[in-house]
Structures are given as C-alpha cells and as structure tokens.
C-alpha cells in the first residue's frame, strides 16, 4: 500500500527530472555540434523558476484550463508507463489507454491556444495536428505489430515477455517496427527536422505565442513530460523496459543522444515534406514489419 502511494508520486517526479534534464542536455549537445558553448545544463530549471515569478496575461478560462488539462494529461500518461518496476496504473486498460491519453497533451494546448485568438496559434495547431496524423500512421502500425506479436494489449505484459524472450528490437519480427519507431521519434518529440509546430522564424513559435509567465512554464514542463513519454514508450516496447529506474534511465539516455546526433544535422522540414517522409519510409518499414509478424504468427 505504502509502496503504491510512493510509486504514484515518485514516477511522475522522476519523469519530470529526466524530461527537464533532457531539455537542458539537448540544448547543450546542439550547441556543441554548432560549435557554440551553449547554456548550462540547469538552464531549463532556471527558466521555469523565472517564468513562474513573471507577469502573464490570460485570454479566458479555457485558455487557463487547456494548459492545465495538457499538463495533467501528460502526467497521467506517465502513471500508465512502466518505469523500471514502477507502473502505478498497470491494470487499467493498457497500451490503448496510453495511446488515447497521449492525446490530452496536444489537445489541451490546442484548446487553450484556440482561445488565444491569434492566427499564429491556429496555424501552429493545424500543423501540429497534421504532423500528428503523419506520425500516427506508422506509430499505430508499430504498436499493432507489437500488440499482435505478444498477443496482449497490456504494456506491462509486453515488458514482461521481453524479459523472457529478449529485447524485441533485436528479435526478427519486431526489428523493422523498431527501426520505424526510431525514425519517427523526432516527430513524436517535436525535435529538429520536425519542429514545424513552433517554427519561431515563421509563425512566432505557434501555439506558444500568447503564453507568458506561468503559462510558458507549464508548457515547458509539459514538453519535458512528452519527451519522457515518447522515449520511455520506445524503451518499454523495444528495449525490454528495465528492472530498475537506473537502467531504464541509461537506456533512455542512449536513445535520446543517438536521436539528437542524427537529427541535429538536418534543417527543418516543411509540413508537407514532413508528412511525406513519415508516410514513406517509416510507414513502409512498419507495414512490412506487421506483415512479418502476421506470417510468423500463422
């Protein structure tokens, strides 16, 4: 019982710390790749504290509620996500619930931004939704391949089965979906070649344009959580999860840094290019992977 309560508090807290650490790390690594010195690792924390104490403006109650919903939704997803041995809400619907709960983050921002009454926001949200449709096509195929292969919809079961049978990333049927997930990971996380949603030079950072003060702090925290969720899902589905949080963190770190190295070198896509890319190679790999899973199952 006590362990249960501790898990409920510990797992979002660790997720937050890891997410913010990744935010700082990505700025540092990007800067080094660009031959700059870069901000200190703690910069995001300093920013969040600073933003909390600053003045902000609100456009209405949905403007406030949307950002709360967005952050709350992301935290709830973390509760569904196995993190080492921790998974507070393991028996409440499995992967399908995670898939739907992951919607709350962007949806909250979209609703909140909608009341901001600024066309830059609307353009940003329209791009976000198009991009999401773009990566959901391969992502759904990947998740279906995993669920069909392990014959379960529970993510805890998926992790458990990998502990007996080895990582799915290096097993034959799930190799292709694994690669596909790695290819779409930057789109899910909204990183470099896919940062069309914010695109500061084009649409004044899109959905964020009306945010200031604590709103911006909340949006940053939400972003940190979504970084954690996107990578943790990959680690759980393809790298066998982990038996303790430290191993889990190391696996996440490796995935994140590898992804950064690859993506730091690319310039930003246009939204159509992004969708075309997502619907071409990752989808093809995931599709073939799903067929392989079906053939092996027969």
């Amino acid at each position, binding site marked *: 019982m006590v362990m249960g309560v501790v898990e409920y508090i510990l797992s979002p807290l660790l997720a937050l710390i890891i997410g913010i650490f990744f935010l700082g790390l990505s700025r540092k690594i990007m800067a080094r790749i660009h031959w700059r010195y870069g901000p200190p690792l703690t910069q995001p924390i300093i920013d969040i504290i600073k933003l909390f104490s600053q003045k*902000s*403006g*609100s*456009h*209405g109650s*949905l403007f*406030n509620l949307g950002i*709360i919903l967005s*952050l*709350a939704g992301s935290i*709830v997803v973390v509760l569904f996500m196995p993190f080492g041995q921790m998974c507070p*809400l393991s*028996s*409440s*619907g*499995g992967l399908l*619930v995670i898939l*739907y*709960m992951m*919607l*709350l983050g962007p*949806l909250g921002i*979209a*609703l909140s931004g*909608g*009341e*901001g*009454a*600024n*066309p*830059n926001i*609307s353009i940003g*949200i*329209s*791009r976000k*939704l*198009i991009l*999401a*449709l773009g990566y*959901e096509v391969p992502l*759904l195929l990947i998740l*279906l*391949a995993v*669920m069909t292969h392990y*014959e379960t*919809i*529970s993510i805890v*079961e998926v992790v458990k089965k990998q502990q007996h049978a080895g990582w799915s990333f290096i097993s034959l049927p799930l190799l292709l979906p694994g690669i596909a997930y790695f290819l779409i990971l930057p789109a899910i996380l909204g990183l470099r070649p896919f940062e069309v949603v914010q695109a500061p030079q084009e649409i*004044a950072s899109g959905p964020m*344009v*009306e945010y200031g*003060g*604590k*709103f911006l702090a*909340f949006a940053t925290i939400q972003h940190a959580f979504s970084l954690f969720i996107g990578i943790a899902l990959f680690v759980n589905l393809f790298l066998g999860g982990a038996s303790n949080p430290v191993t889990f963190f190391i696996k996440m770190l490796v995935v994140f840094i590898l992804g950064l190295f690859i993506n730091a070198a690319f310039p930003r896509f246009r939204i*159509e290019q992004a*969708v075309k890319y997502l619907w071409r190679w990752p989808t093809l790999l995931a599709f073939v992977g*799903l067929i392989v*899973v079906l053939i092996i*199952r027969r």
Partner: protein
Amino acid sequence: MSLELLLIIAFGGAFLTYLLGKISSGLRDSFAVFISLALVAVIAFLYGKPLHKAFYSGFLGLPLVLRLNMLSWFFAITIAVVGALSIIFSLSYIKGRERTDFYYLMMLLVNASMLGIVLSGDLVSFYIFWEIMSWSAFLLISYNRGPALAAGMKYIIMSIIGSTAMLVGMLSLYASYGTLSISEIAPQIASASPGYILFLSVLFFVAFGIKNAVWPFHTWLPPAHSEAPSPFSAVLSGILVRMGMYGFLLFFFVIVGSKIFLGLGRGSFHYILAWIGAINIVIPTFIAMLQNDSKRLLAWHGVGQGGYMVLGVALGTSLGVTGGIFHIVNHTSYIALLFLVVGAVEYRTNGIRDLNSLGGLIKRMPITFIGALIGVCGLIGLPLTNGFVSKWLIYKSLILQGHPFLAFGALIGTWGTILSLYKFLHNMFLGQLPERYNGIKKAPVSMQFPIIILSLIIILFGIFPGIPLKVINCIVTSFGLQSLNINIWGIGSETGALNTINIFAAVLAVGLMVWLVFRAGRKAEPLPQEDTYAAGAAIPREKYHYTVDFYKPLYRMISPYLRDVIDEFYSWIATGVKGLCNGIRHVYTGDVGYYVMYIILFLSSLIFVQIMWGIW
C-alpha cells in the same frame, strides 16, 4: 402496461398533437413534450419484463406480434430519450416557422414508428413500421424545401430500393416457411442450405445497409443530414439511421444465429462485412475533414461511426458485439448532442452553418461550447467519455483476434476524427469573435437543457460504463455468445482489463494538483481578444481568425484521393436514367397527332411487310 397501449400512446399522441395545434400552439408544445416524456417513463418502467403477444391475426392470415426483450428495450429507451430531448429542443428552434403542427406530427410519428420497429415480433409489422418511418423521415428531411427537396428525394429513392430488397427477402422467407414470426423462423432457418442463407443475408444486408448508410450505400446521408432541421438531424443521425444496425442484429443474431452467421460463405461473409466496416470508418472520416458546412461535417462522421458498429458486430465475438452495440448508444448520445449544438448556433446566428464565417462564440454561448466540447471528446473517444469504452472493446477484440489491419483502419479513423472535429470546434467557438456577433445571446433554456442532459450521459457512461454494459451483456448472452466479466467501472479479463474509475481518479487527482500549482503562480491578468501578439501590426477587427483551408497542406496531399466515387457513380446512373426518360418523352409527347401518326406508321409498316413478303 401492455405494448399495444404504448404504441397507441405514441401514435395517438402524434395525431392528437397535430389537432391540438389547430387550437393553440402553446397547448400543442406542452402536449408534445408530455407525450415524449411519457414514452420515456413507460419504457423505463417496462425494463426487464419480457412480453410477447399477438395482437391481431387478420392481416393476410398472419399474426401481428409485439414483443419486448432486452434488445428491443435497449433500442426503445434510446429512441424515447433522444426523441424527447429533440422535441424539447424543437420548442424554440421551430417556433415562428411555418407548418409547425405538421413538424411536430412528423417528429412524433417518426418516434412512434421507430418504437414500433423495435417492438415488432414479426416481419410484417416490422415492414409496416419501417415504411412509416422511412416516409415520415422523408417529409421531415425535405421540410426546409429548396435544396432539402433534392436531399429528401435522394434519400427516399435509396430507401425504397432498400425496402424492396427487404420485401423480396421476406416473401422468400414466407414462401419457404409459411410464417413471418421471428421466433418461429429462427429455429427453422438453421436447417436451410448455406446458399439460401447467403442469398437472404445479401438481401437484408442491402436493406439495412442502406438505412445504416454503410459504404457503398452511404450517399444519401450527407445531404439529408445537413438539410434536415437540426433537431431532426439529431434523431436521424442518432437513432433513425441506427435502425439499420437493429436490423443487422435482428437478422444475423436473432434469426440466423451467430454460429451460422460466422460460418456463412465458409467464414468469408462476416470477414467481408468487417472490411466494409473498416472502409466505412476511414474514407468518411477523412472526407469529413474537407467539409466546410458544420452539419455536413457531422453527417460524414455519422457515416464513419457506423463503421465501428458494423466492424464490432461483424466480428461476432462477445467483445466485438458488445462494443458494437455499446457504440450505437454512445454514438446516439454524442452525435445528437453535436447536432443540437449546431442547431443552437444556427438559431442564434440566423442559420449560419458555414464554418468559415463563425468564430469566438465561446464567449457568448459558454454552455453550448461545453456541450460541443464534451460531444467532440465523446466522438473522438477520449478516456472518461462513453465513446472510449466502446472503441476500446472493438480494438481489443480486433487485436486479440489477430486482425491488426482492421484495427489499423479503426484507429486511424480516430485520427481523422480528431482533425476534423478540432476544426469544427475551433472555427465555430474559438479564435476571435467577429464584431457582427457581439450582440449574440446564450442559447435559450429549452435548448440548453437537452445539451446538458446529453453531456451528462456521455460523462456518466464514460466513468461508469457498467450501467449500459450490463444490459448489453444480457443482449449478447441472449445471442448465444459468451458472457463478459462486467463490473460497474469496466471489464475484467486476463488479457488486459479496463478500469475507468482508476483513470477517472488519476485524472481528477492530477488535474487538481496541477490546478493548485497553477493557482499558486502569479495571477494572470485578463486580456481582451484584440490584445494579441501581431509583431506590432494593427489587428483587424472583422476577420482575424485562421479558418479557411484549415489543413491546407494536408488537403493538397490527400484531396485527390478522397473523391466520393460511389456518389459520382450513382449520380452518373441517375443522369443516365433521366436522359433516357427525357428521350422517351420525345416519343410520348401527349399530343394526339403524334399518336395518330404512330398508329398510321405502324399500320403502314404492317401493310408494307405484307406486300413485300406476304407473311399472313
């Protein structure tokens, strides 16, 4: 309380309302509301009382039977509730229009005939009520005249084709078994040859598929839904169309039986049906994204959501059928809600349905917006709304049965839904309020009431799905399928349970915590909508809302593939037939002189033949 009395109240009430309208409109309105609420009460009272009675036996020597079981009760209560709410909504919506007596008569008649359909215990009375429903729906669809007439015509032509298919099927059943009573046919049909059952299945699939707007019979639905008066659109999309689903369930699970249904055509029939369901999800939801008329957008979702039901039911597993049936009532709740929301906006803005000319209405119509938001969440199927539970059941069934591609179709349809419905919400309620709508008032109470009730139903069934699932479980077990382990907040099972109360508690607790943190921060000062960042430029007052071509980059990519080919094909046939008939009209001019000429030409050709070849 007997079932005849129920139908007498329903039909008699409809005609009495019409007569009362001739005396006073206030009396008529309150009587219509009273009748529709009385029906809800009576049906709720009849819960769990199986009834079966032949009330008339003179019709062609066939007994007309009324019966009540869980399946018909489930549909009856849905019909009655949606009917009552739409009548209440109509009070202000239809006030001041012409032919209001007629409108109420038809609304109540549609309700009564739908109740008749689900209570029928034999196919003759089923058919009679079915036709009453089809025709009164036609009259309501074309109520607004203008383009509504064409929409109604399209509907009734397809509906007649469906009814004809059903009639042929019924006659064939009668010829084979000499009875049309459902409970008497069911045991006999088990011994029929598979080919014959397949023949019947195809006929009834056409009959109910047209009503259910299943691809490729969906083309009547989008114009009909968008042109009908909004309260009737709610009934039409919510439950009238789903009479087709009732027909599917009745034919495939009650008459034919699940075992034979799953074995039809060596097991391929239900598989093809499932694929039709999947196609029916994907194409319409993506077409919905391209729509600029709010009601037409919803109408396409009405087509799309039907796909989930067909998909679930076609699987034939207890999970799938439960999900499919649950999706019917869920769809009823949120699509009715959304049509009523559009109706309220239409009412306040003098009939504006164009998504590109609205905006910012959240500031003027907050309750309507909350209704829209909850309806949208339900239609997307976010957790804690009822739509999530039924979709979850269908997905789970598909994945565990090893149909990942069907599951992919269903899941990607959800994403099409998100895109199109965010556009719906954003273009109407969010963004900047145009100056011409500054003086708009809230929706009247009689419009807010149904919106609130439907919103509550969506949330209630989302958090406690066990309430309807218990009834559905009775239906599913009566089909001879395995019973599910249902508790009040979800489904327990070894292969992955669902527990909505956990999700609810988690969302509530985390939301509260985040809110407290938010409150702890410095208070945000309220800003007017003109005070937005525009890089120093002046902000235009009239149109500063990004709506037109909301997903333009995506449209450019996918719209060439999203033509409604089926509709074009039907239109092509229709133009062809029209051309042919026009050609024939040149022959049958109605001028006596022409006919005399034809007679003379015919006679002279006969004479010519005789002279040349001497046949006679």
